[in-house]
C-alpha cells in the first residue's frame, strides 16, 4: 500500500445560521484552494461527500460547483462517523493506487435525518439518543462509582477548550456548577452533558506520498486505521460500561501504526455525551477501566488540552457528517504545530475517535507528523 497523508483542510463555523448544504460544503472547500499553492481542480481524482442528508448525487454536484471533474465521486453515510468513513474510503483509493489526490467534504444541517435511527426497533419508544447515553451512564456509575459531578468535569473541560476554537458552536464557558444545575433530561443526563446538532462543514485534502510535497511541506500521515461495526441496533451492546466497537477498532489502529496509547500526544474523542469521553478514555487505553473520571479531573485541574483540545463535540457542536473530519483537522493542525491557543506542545502522534449510533460502530485513526 502507498503512504497517504493530509495536505490541507478547511472548516466553516459550527452554528445554527441557516445555509444550504451545498453552500456549507463549498465554504469549507474554498480555504483549501485559497491556501494551497500548486493545487488546481485538475489535480483531484476523488471527491467524497460525507453527510446524512438525503440529497442525491451530492458528490457530483459539489464537484461541478467546485469546477472538479473527478474520476470517482460519491457520498458516504454512516450516521455520526460518516466523516471518518469518508476519510478511510479516500485513503483506500489512494493507498491502492486507484487515485493520487482526494477531497473529502463533510457537512450536516441541524435538522439532519441522521439524528435518530428510526430503524432500530430494539429502542422501543426510546428512540432519542439521550436514552442510550443514559443507559451507558447508569451502568458506568453503578459499576465504577462514577458520579454526576465526574461527568460534569468532561463538559467543563471541553467547553473551556472550545473557547480557543473560533469555529466552535458554543462561545461561552460553563462551570461545573452551571452543568450540574442545567436542565435534567434523565436521572443521569443533563442538558449540558449533550452535544448540540448544528450546521457545519469540514474538508480535507488527501494525497499519496509521491505527490503530497507539491501541496505542503508539512504533510501529516495517516498511519493507523481501525473500524468496527458490531451491529446497528443499540441493545446489541452486550457490555454497557464499555464500547466494544471502540475497543476493537483501536486495537486495529494501534496495531497498524505500531503505536500504543501512551505514545499518543493529543486525541479527539467522540463525546456525543459527556459520559462517552470517560468510557472512551478507558476503552482506548489512556487509563485503566474505572479510572476515566479521575483522568478527566486531572486534565481539568492541570488545564491539560491533550484530550479534545478543540472542545470536543460538547463544546464545538455536532454537525454529524462534518464531525469526524473536523476532529481529524484538529489533529492535523496540532501535529503541524498550527493549533494556536489550543496547541499541545511538541505533539507528534495523534488519535481520532469517531463513532455512531450508540457506539454500534467506531472508527479510530492514528496520525503522525
Amino acid at each position: 500500500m502507498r503512504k497517504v497523508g493530509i495536505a490541507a483542510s478547511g472548516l466553516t463555523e459550527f452554528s445554527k445560521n441557516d445555509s444550504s448544504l451545498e453552500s456549507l460544503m463549498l465554504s469549507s472547500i474554498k480555504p483549501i484552494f485559497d491556501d494551497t499553492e500548486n493545487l488546481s481542480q485538475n489535480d483531484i481524482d476523488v471527491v467524497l461527500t460525507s453527510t446524512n442528508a438525503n440529497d442525491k448525487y451530492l458528490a457530483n454536484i459539489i464537484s461541478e460547483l467546485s469546477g472538479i471533474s473527478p474520476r470517482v465521486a460519491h457520498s458516504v453515510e454512516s450516521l455520526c462517523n460518516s466523516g471518518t468513513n469518508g476519510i478511510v474510503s479516500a485513503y483506500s483509493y489512494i493507498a491502492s493506487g486507484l487515485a493520487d489526490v482526494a477531497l473529502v467534504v463533510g457537512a450536516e444541517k441541524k435538522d439532519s435525518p441522521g439524528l435518530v435511527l428510526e430503524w432500530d426497533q430494539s429502542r422501543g419508544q426510546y428512540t432519542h439518543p439521550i436514552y442510550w447515553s443514559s443507559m451507558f451512564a447508569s451502568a458506568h456509575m453503578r459499576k465504577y462509582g462514577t458520579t454526576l459531578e465526574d461527568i460534569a468535569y468532561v463538559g467543563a473541560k471541553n467547553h473551556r477548550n472550545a473557547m480557543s476554537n473560533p469555529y466552535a458552536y458554543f462561545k461561552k464557558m460553563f462551570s461545573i456548577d452551571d452543568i450540574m444545575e442545567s436542565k435534567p433530561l434523565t436521572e443521569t443526563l443533563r442538558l449540558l452533558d449533550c452535544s448540540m446538532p448544528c450546521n457545519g462543514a469540514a474538508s480535507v485534502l488527501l494525497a499519496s506520498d509521491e505527490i503530497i510535497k507539491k501541496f505542503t511541506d508539512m504533510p501529516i500521515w495517516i498511519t493507523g486505521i481501525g473500524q468496527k461495526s458490531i451491529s446497528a441496533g443499540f441493545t446489541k451492546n452486550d457490555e454497557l460500561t464499555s464500547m466494544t466497537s471502540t475497543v476493537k477498532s483501536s486495537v486495529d489502529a494501534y496495531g497498524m501504526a505500531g503505536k500504543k496509547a501512551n505514545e499518543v500526544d493529543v486525541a479527539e474523542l467522540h463525546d456525543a455525551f459527556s459520559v462517552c469521553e470517560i468510557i472512551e478514555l478507558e476503552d482506548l487505553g489512556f487509563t485503566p477501566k474505572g479510572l476515566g473520571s479521575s483522568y478527566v479531573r486531572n486534565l481539568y485541574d492541570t488545564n491539560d488540552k491533550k484530550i479534545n483540545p478543540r472542545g470536543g463535540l460538547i463544546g464545538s457542536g455536532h454537525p454529524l457528517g462534518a464531525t469526524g473530519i473536523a476532529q481529524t483537522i484538529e489533529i492535523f493542525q496540532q501535529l503541524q504545530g498550527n493549533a494556536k491557543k489550543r496547541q499541545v506542545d511538541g505533539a507528534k502522534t495523534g488519535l481520532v475517535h469517531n463513532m455512531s449510533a450508540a457506539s454500534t460502530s467506531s472508527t479510530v485513526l492514528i496520525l503522525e507528523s
Partner: protein
Amino acid sequence: MNIFQQELKNNNFVCSSCQKCNKLVWPPSDFCNSCFGSVTWRQVTKTAKLVEFSSRGNEVFCIAEFESSIRIMGSIQNASNLKIGQPLTLVKCDFDGKEKFILEPAV
C-alpha cells in the same frame, strides 16, 4: 405496519424464528441472520431479565432481555428497589408509530 408491528398493536410480542436452525432472529427479519434459513413467527415469553435502567421524571425506562437473546428498551411500572438481573414481566406491548413495551417487576 409489518407483521411484528401489527402483532405488537394486538398486545402480542412475537419474533421471527428460523425454521432451519430454530434460532430466534432479532430484530425481526425475513431470513435467519445465522444460516439464512426461512423464518416463521412465534410468541416471545412474557418474562425478562433487567439489564439496565434509568428514569426520566417519574418514568422508569430500561433494557430488558427476553429468552437470553432479545434485548429491548421499555418502561417499568410499579418500579421500586430495582436490582440488575431481577425478573420482569411484560404486561403490555403496543405500536403507535413506535414500538412500546411496558414491564413490571415479577412477583
